[in-house]
């Protein structure tokens, strides 16, 4: 399992989200995050070459038009 220290978990929460983790919470987050990182690495082994992500220009255009009409 990937290892993440409580100090690292605290620093990430502080720098990325402005959130202060307690010592106990930081230890729990570090443990859970380590497991999650290990599991998510499996995604990196999937062969997704040539497969497009679900992003479409019609969606972007339609939402922009909706925002325009709302404002």
């Amino acid at each position, binding site marked *: 399992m990937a290892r993440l220290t409580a100090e690292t978990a605290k620093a990430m929460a502080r720098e990325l989200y402005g959130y202060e983790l307690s010592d106990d919470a930081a230890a729990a987050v570090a443990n859970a995050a380590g497991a999650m990182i290990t599991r998510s690495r499996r995604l990196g082994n999937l062969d997704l070459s040539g497969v497009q992500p679900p992003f479409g*220009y019609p969606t972007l255009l339609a939402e922009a038009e909706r925002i325009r009409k709302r404002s």
Partner: protein
Amino acid sequence: MATASPLLDFDVAALGQKLRAREISPVELTAAYLDRIEAVDERVNSYITVTHDTARAMARLAEAEIAAGNWRGPFHGVPIGLKDLCYTKGILTTGGSKILGDFVPAHDSTVWARLAAAGAVLLGKLNLHEFAYGATSNNPHWGACHNPYDLSRIPGGSSGGSGAAIVARTAAATIGTDTGGSIRIPAACCGCVGLKQTWSRVSRYGVMPLSDSLDHTGPITRTARDAALMLNVIAGYDPHDATSSREPVPDYTSRLGGDLKGMRIGVIRELTTGVSAPVADAFNAALKQFGALGATVDEVSIPSFVEGAQVTMVVLMAEALEFHEQWMRERPQDYGHDVRSLIETSMTISAVNYVRAQRERNLMLAEALNALEKNAVLLAPAQAIPAPRIEDRSYDLVENMVRFTGPFNATGQPALSIPTGLSREGLPVAMQVIGKPFDEVTVLQVADAYERARGPLPQPEL
């Protein structure tokens, strides 16, 4: 200074007519381009691979077809180059990298397949910033590409070879790709036309990705008319690319050649600040030129564009990390320092910020559409400064370049870079013409009218 064949003086529009009328031979034309590459490219380094035999064979075929009365269109027999990010079946396609230094694709990119079907002749594969991830084209694996106007300066990037080849006259037209400005920045640095058309207008199949939701593949050419002719060939739905648009493809040359009487044009306030004097002076002169062409020019505001480049960079870096993650684990030493550092920096972008940046794109496009409600097109400088020296590390790429181009990758609108003149140092400066989604016809109309009023730029001496 190398002696250039007069055949190299013709743009694609002129070549198309002369080749069709058999006033010019595709074989002689291709030989002239290959000779030119031989004469100057050791200094410019615009090519990674020159496909001599393929080019000659395609030229012979074009000659025979045209002689038999089977003219395929304006690109039949026209020698072009492709950014080495575009797959070409059986031909080395490196992405400007060491990692793919011996990669030979088993199929063509759609953009090349369409140009080949239109009869274009492939001169070779063009140099670029490694994996298209940067704007200098200082390539550590294949050598730095040089600006033909001043060989000590960058041609811009990432499609640096594609821009340099146009003004060095080592290709009649080229293909580039643009994720944060990589067609428009080299076009601006090198003094040619670069068109990033609407996202999804041109298939990305067989083009190595940098950032899937921001990547565009498009023309770099001598003139707006040539860009229109090239877009006529490459635009349209592609069953290999599910994100490609099914919007009808118009004739992009349909409104070229006219004036701009009665047209309203907006200047984007947020993108006219912080530019150098040579860029500002030429941009202001261009605005006066639009007035002389019969257009009304007014300032417009798109407040979200102040941070527009940051939105683009967050999306770009997150998506680029996803593409490069496995190689970064297995072969980090095979990346150039700057690209590896960018990918490492990408590891600090949070999922929350990525999703928020994607959502912010909607707001940016909504504001841009508001600005276009009363204006046919918008204008902005293409970058803050002329091409810097290759060894210069003092300027900020995002602040001086991507700030002006990146917002239109986020909004997906068409944006075309066109030269506004040369600085006192003899370096090209440029502006962008930006349009409504899928309205490349108007963008090209405006660029063409301005270009004819501006007149030709002095050519670089090589």
